[in-house]
C-alpha cells in the first residue's frame, strides 16, 4: 500500500479531526474540566462566600482560571476570595507579608492534587522562613536529613506548637535540652528566632560581652539564671561587681572597676597599677615584693608614711621626726639631701659650710637655737656694749667687717676709718686711742707748751678737728 503523505491518510486525518472535535466539545461542555489534572482539595477551611473548600469549585474552572482574554490573572482570583491574605501582603509582621504576591500564590499552594492532599506545598529550601520571624538556617542543615515543614507544623503550616521544639530537641540531646528547658523555660521563641546568632553556631563574642578567660567555661545559667526572654538576656549585668560582689575580698575598698587590676582568667593574676593608688611606687619601692609591704595579703590600710614602715630603720632615733622623705629619696637611705633653707634657720654665709654637728652639737636636729648668742659668745672686745643682736652689725659671712650705725660721739669715718673700729679702738671698745694714726711723740711735742701730759684727745677735739683745741 502506498501512502505518499505518510500518516496523513484519510483515516488518519479523520481520526485527528474527530479527536480534536471530541476534545473541544468535551472541554466546552465540562467548562474545561477535561484538562483538570486532578481533584481539588476538599479540606474545609474558612467559609468564603459560601465556599469552605476548593472542592466546591470543582465544576467551575473559571472561578480560578480566567480566560486568556481576561484582564485578571489567577492570583487575582485567589486574592479575590482570600481577602485576608491580600491584606497580609506587604505587612512584614504577617505570614504572607514579605513572601507573597498575587503572582506567586501557586508557588506554595498547589491544587489538583486530590481531595486529601495538602494545599500548601512549600519548598523548604526556597521558602523565606525568616519572613515569618524565624530563620531556618540551622534547621535546614540538620543531619541526617533536613527537617520537613510538618516536623514543626504538624497540624497546619499556619500554626506552630512550641511543644514541637522540645519533642525534637529532647530526642537530639536529652541532657542539654532538659537543662536548657529547666534553666530558661519552655518558651523557646522568646529568645530563639532561628538566626545564626541564636542557633547552634551562635557566638557570644558577637555580643557586647565576649566570653573571655574563665567566663568561657561557665554554664550559661551562671550569668543568665532565670532569664526567660531575649530582653532579659540582653539585660544581663555586664559590670564585674554585679556578679562578683560576693567574691570581692577587698570588701569594696578598691572600688568596683575590677578590670583595672584583674583579668577574666583568674582573680589571682592581678596587675595593679600602683601609680593609681595614693602611694605611687618609686625606685626601691617599685622593686620590692608586694607582700613586703602588704603583709598577710593585706591590701588596704597599709601606712603610706615612711615611718609607718621604716620606723625600725630610723637611725636618727626619731630626732628628725617621721618625715623621712624630707631628706631621703626612695632609692636608698644613703641618698639624702637636706635643704636647710626649708628650715626656720636658713644657712647663709659661713653657716652653709659648717658641719651639721657644729651647730647641732647634741645630735638633736630639733630645737636648735637660732639666736647668735646661743652659739657665738659675745666677745670681750664688745665689752657687753651691744647685747645679743649680733646681726645688727654683723652678717653671716664673717664677723668683720661689721657695720655699726648706732650712736657714736665721734665721726666714724674720721681719718678714713670707714667703720673699722680697730683703728681707734684696738683691744676693746671701751677705750680709744688716736695714736694709732697720729704719732704720739709728735703730738706730745706739739702739745707740750700747754699740757704736761694728756690722754683724752676728744676732750679738746670732740669731732676730731685739729683746730678745735686752739680756743
Amino acid at each position, binding site marked *: 500500500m502506498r501512502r505518499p503523505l*505518510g500518516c496523513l491518510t484519510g483515516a488518519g486525518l479523520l*481520526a485527528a479531526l474527530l479527536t480534536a472535535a471530541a476534545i473541544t466539545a468535551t472541554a466546552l461542555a465540562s467548562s474545561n474540566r477535561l484538562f483538570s489534572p*486532578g481533584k481539588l482539595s476538599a479540606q474545609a477551611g474558612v467559609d468564603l462566600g459560601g465556599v469552605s473548600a476548593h472542592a466546591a469549585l470543582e465544576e467551575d474552572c473559571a472561578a480560578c482560571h480566567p480566560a*486568556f482574554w481576561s484582564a485578571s490573572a489567577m492570583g487575582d482570583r485567589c486574592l479575590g476570595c482570600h481577602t485576608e491574605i491580600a491584606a497580609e501582603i506587604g505587612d512584614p509582621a504577617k505570614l504572607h507579608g514579605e513572601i507573597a504576591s498575587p503572582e506567586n500564590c501557586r508557588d506554595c499552594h498547589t491544587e489538583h492534587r486530590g481531595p486529601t492532599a495538602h494545599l500548601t506545598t512549600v519548598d523548604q529550601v526556597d521558602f523565606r522562613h525568616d519572613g515569618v520571624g524565624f530563620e531556618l538556617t540551622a534547621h535546614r542543615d540538620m543531619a541526617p536529613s533536613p527537617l520537613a515543614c510538618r516536623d514543626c507544623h504538624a497540624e497546619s503550616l499556619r500554626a506552630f506548637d512550641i511543644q514541637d521544639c522540645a519533642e525534637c530537641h529532647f530526642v537530639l540531646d536529652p541532657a542539654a535540652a532538659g537543662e536548657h528547658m529547666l534553666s530558661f523555660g519552655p518558651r523557646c521563641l522568646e529568645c530563639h528566632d532561628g538566626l545564626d546568632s541564636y542557633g547552634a553556631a551562635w557566638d557570644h563574642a558577637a555580643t557586647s560581652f565576649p566570653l573571655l578567660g574563665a567566663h568561657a567555661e561557665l554554664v550559661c545559667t551562671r550569668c543568665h539564671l532565670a532569664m526567660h526572654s531575649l530582653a532579659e538576656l540582653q539585660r544581663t549585668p555586664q559590670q564585674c561587681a554585679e556578679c562578683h560582689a560576693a567574691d570581692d575580698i577587698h570588701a569594696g575598698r578598691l572600688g568596683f572597676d575590677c578590670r583595672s587590676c584583674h583579668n577574666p582568667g583568674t582573680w589571682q593574676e592581678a596587675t595593679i597599677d600602683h601609680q593609681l593608688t595614693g602611694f605611687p611606687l618609686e625606685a626601691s619601692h617599685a622593686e620590692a615584693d608586694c607582700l613586703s609591704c602588704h603583709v598577710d595579703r593585706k591590701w588596704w590600710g597599709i601606712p603610706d608614711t615612711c615611718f609607718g614602715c621604716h620606723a625600725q630603720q630610723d637611725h636618727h632615733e626619731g630626732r628628725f621626726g617621721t618625715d623621712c622623705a624630707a631628706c631621703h629619696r626612695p632609692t636608698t637611705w644613703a641618698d639624702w639631701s637636706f635643704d636647710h633653707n626649708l628650715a626656720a634657720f636658713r644657712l647663709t654665709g659661713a653657716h652653709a659650710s659648717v658641719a651639721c654637728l657644729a651647730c647641732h652639737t647634741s645630735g638633736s636636729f630639733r630645737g636648735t637655737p637660732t639666736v647668735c648668742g646661743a652659739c657665738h659668745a659675745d666677745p670681750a672686745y664688745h665689752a657687753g656694749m651691744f647685747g645679743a643682736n649680733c646681726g645688727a652689725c654683723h652678717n653671716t659671712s664673717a664677723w668683720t667687717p661689721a657695720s655699726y650705725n648706732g650712736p657714736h660721739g665721734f665721726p666714724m669715718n674720721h681719718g678714713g676709718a670707714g667703720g673699722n673700729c680697730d683703728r681707734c679702738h684696738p683691744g676693746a671698745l671701751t677705750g680709744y686711742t688716736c695714736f694709732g694714726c697720729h704719732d704720739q711723740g709728735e703730738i706730745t711735742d706739739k702739745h707740750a707748751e700747754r699740757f704736761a701730759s694728756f690722754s683724752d684727745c676728744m676732750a679738746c677735739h670732740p669731732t676730731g678737728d685739729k683746730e678745735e683745741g686752739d680756743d
Partner: protein
Amino acid sequence: MPPVQRNRELLLAALAMLLIGGLYAAASLTVGVPEAGRLLGHSLGVVGFVLMLATETLYSLRKRAVRRARGRMSEWLQFHIFTGIVGPYLVLLHSAWSYKGLAGIVMLLTVIVVFSGFVGRYIYTAVPRTPEGALFEADDLERMIGEAEMALRDRLGSAESIGAAPDRPTVWLVLGRGPKSLTDRLRRWHELRRLDPAARVQAVRVQALRARLRELRRQAASLSAARRLLAVWHTVHIPLGMALFVAAFYHIGAALYFATLQR
C-alpha cells in the same frame, strides 16, 4: 553490508527502560514520586513526547526519502521501535501514576498505540523482505523455494520425503507463526536428543534445510494474507496514532496555558 542484528532495538530499549526506571525509583525514594508538573516529571514528559514524535515522523520520512535516502530501512525501523518504546515509557513515568482527564486519555491512547505497534511489528516481520527492507514478490519466493528443495534433496536423496506446502488458513499462517515456530523448535530438539552425536551433526543440517524450506513455503502461502493484515493494521494504527498526537497536543497546550502561562 553488515547484517542487522535481530531484536537489537528491543534489547536496547529494555536496557534504557531499566536505567531510566532505576533513576526514577531512586528519585522517588529520595524526594517522592516526581509530579508531572514539577521539573523532573515535566522533563520526563517533554523528552518522552519528543521521542514519540520522532517515532511517528522520522521513520515515515525515511520510507519516503527515495532520492536522498540515509541509512538502511531496517536500522531506521530499529530506531523507530526503540523510540516507540522508550518515549511512551517516559510519558508513563511523567504521568506520576495519575490518569485523570485528558492526560489520562492521552496515556491510554499511548498504551494502545504502543501495543498496536508491537502487533504491527509482528505482522511486518511476517512479510519477507530484503535486508534493505524491500518486499519479496511471489516469484522470488518460488525461486528460493526451488533452491531450498534442491538443497534438501541433495542432502536426503530421492527416497525420503521433503514435505509438502502448508495447508492451514493463510491468516493463521501469519498470526500463528510464532507459536508454530516455537513448537517446531521443541519437536526438533526432542528428535536431536534421540540421535547419537555423529548422526546429530547430519540431522542438524537437515533440520536447518527443512526449516528454511518450511519458512519459505509459509511465506509464499501467506504472502497476500500478510500484506492484507499489514494494510489493515495500518488502517487501524494510523488513526490511533493521529488521535494520540492530537490529544497530546491538546494536553500540552492546556498544560502550557493553565500551568505555565496562567499565573
